[in-house]
């Protein structure tokens, strides 16, 4: 009746089916390119106690730092680049900044510094950038990418100096940052520590929470049938169920119920217990990769379940989602992916994004 009120913002879901053993499988690339992860939750059916190896992986997630009021140019200084960034992969994301309102800054392990800034800041900065894809009527947001690994903006070049000048004197941008580094090898902690010691900073550990869920209805999955069809549930129904389990929604309502009619999709089985393990913080793709590897090994020994799942949520206010695809926030900033790992090393990968976001890779 009110057609103008019946539309709703667009969303995308990309589903892939492949096998970890397949050489061309791109699961590791998808993980590595999703730089800023906020939360990961693992659901293992028919498991009451967390396996010790999994526990140690989860507890071994890299610590991260909350750096207060950091001038952005510090992330471009020669000393930082050479001593801190080059000796491992560094991730930094401005904290408490909203991508649809404020200036948001991200430093990627590839060496790119991405500044998603409002019009005023952009004009003040005077650096070359692109208009954000998610503007309305007039451009109000711009994206400036400074890639110190590229030749034209390498240390000491004219453009590098200009970027430094712009961020240092023209428009001294500052922000709180979440910062973490994945060390490759050897002890390079010293350089990072000495960098951090110059600033007001707080060391944080990803927080882990473990729950055991009891008596869940659960949809039957067939690794060969990604899209569902026939009698099996489709990806959206499966993700809905996964979400329902994660946030504790009752899954066995009658269709005639007044309050809720939600029901686990058919055909369903039941799980007597399931382990739900959640880690929150600034989580590095490397850690998620090792978590995924560990979960694959879970099936080395015979288990009651034929599958398990791991879901990774990205930061809603990150300027990018996968790779350097611009990410925005319209009514929500969802960008997440979810693996379903099967006993036979097949996997499903679901990648979802909201309105102001590109298509997942």
């Amino acid at each position, binding site marked *: 009746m009110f057609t*103008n009120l019946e539309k709703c913002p667009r969303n995308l879901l990309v589903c892939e089916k492949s096998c970890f053993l397949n050489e061309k499988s791109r699961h590791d690339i998808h993980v590595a390119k999703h730089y800023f992860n906020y939360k990961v939750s693992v659901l293992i059916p028919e498991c009451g106690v967390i396996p010790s190896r999994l526990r140690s992986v989860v507890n071994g997630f890299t610590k991260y730092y909350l750096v207060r009021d950091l001038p952005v140019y510090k992330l471009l200084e020669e000393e930082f680049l050479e001593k801190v960034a080059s000796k491992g992969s560094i991730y930094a994301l401005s904290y*408490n900044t909203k991508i649809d309102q404020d*200036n948001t800054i991200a430093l990627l392990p590839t060496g790119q510094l991405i500044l998603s800034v*409002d019009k005023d*800041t952009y004009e003040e900065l005077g650096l070359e950038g692109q208009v954000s894809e998610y503007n*309305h009527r007039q451009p*109000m947001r711009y994206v400036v990418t400074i890639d110190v690994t590229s030749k034209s903006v390498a240390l000491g070049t004219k453009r590098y100096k200009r970027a430094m000048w712009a961020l240092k004197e023209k428009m*001294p*941008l*500052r922000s709180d940052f979440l910062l973490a580094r994945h060390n490759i090898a050897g002890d390079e902690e010293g350089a990072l520590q000495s960098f951090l010691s110059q600033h007001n900073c707080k060391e944080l550990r990803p927080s882990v929470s473990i729950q055991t869920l009891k008596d869940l209805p659960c949809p039957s999955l067939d690794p060969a049938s990604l899209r569902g069809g026939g009698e099996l549930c489709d990806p959206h129904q499966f993700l809905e169920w996964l979400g329902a389990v994660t946030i504790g929604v009752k899954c066995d309502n009658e269709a005639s119920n007044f309050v809720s009619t939600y029901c686990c999709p058919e055909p369903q089985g039941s799980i007597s217990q399931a382990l739900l393990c959640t880690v929150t913080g600034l989580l590095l793709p490397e850690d998620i990769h090792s978590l995924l590897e560990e979960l694959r090994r879970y099936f080395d020994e015979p288990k009651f379940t034929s599958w398990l799942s791991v879901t990774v949520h990205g930061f809603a206010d990150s300027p990018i989602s996968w790779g350097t695809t611009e990410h925005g926030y319209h009514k929500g900033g969802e960008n997440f992916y979810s693996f379903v790992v099967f006993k036979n090393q097949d996997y499903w990968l679901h990648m979802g994004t909201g309105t102001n976001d590109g298509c997942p890779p």
Partner: protein
Amino acid sequence: MAVFIDLNISHTTDKKRLQDIIETAAHLGFSTVAINHVVDLQQKKQEIGKPKSVSELFDQFPIVQGKSRPIKVLNRLTVVVSEASHFRPTNEFKSYDIIAVFPKTEKLFHAACMSFDVDIICIAVTEKQPFHFKRPPVNGAIDRGVFFEISYVPAIKDSTMRRYTISNALSLMETCKGKNVIVSSGAEKPLELRGPYDIANLGLLFGLSEGDAKAAVSTNCRAVLLHGETRKTALGIIHTMKKIQPTMEGQEEDNAPAVKRAKMEAV
């Protein structure tokens, strides 16, 4: 997109309540609010006074939810005019960051759109719009960078007013095509405030598109602030008010450079 702004918090002499409202606004994610002083010159004993400096309100302004910055508070004056003689800019006007006008007749609406030196024109939400919006004045206002304001709080409080709000808003949108519209609260109590995304969604009921609706609580409000700034600084060309009127220095410090300050603090 710019930060979220609510340009209409009803002024009350009850300091505690005003603080509560501003705290709630900060909690909901508004980065800037304006305290609205309404003057209806038809009623006797109403005169435009200088607003209290906002710095008296809080020792420490509440932090905006999920940000590291405190909320910014501005002063706004709304003049209700039912006769042309009511709108006479005085010196007191200068102590407000934003000037709004609420024209009661079609003639005054025309004048407000075409010539009054204001930032905002209020649209009736508590009664049926007594005249039709004509295209020439509306376009004139858009060209001059003046914005139309719809307040949503009456729509929360009362069913009849809700109809007036929606129908007046729709009738405005038919003429202005969603351009130069801001949606603000007009809240007198903390519980009347709604979150910025909620208001953006509500904008769809007022006939705004998704993008226009979000702009109505963010980008457009920012434009109003800039307009208020240029009004005070001779179209933004000069900014020498402090020296011309040395007596007003203290006031200026508090109010005038609010937008400039906004820019600086956005860093």
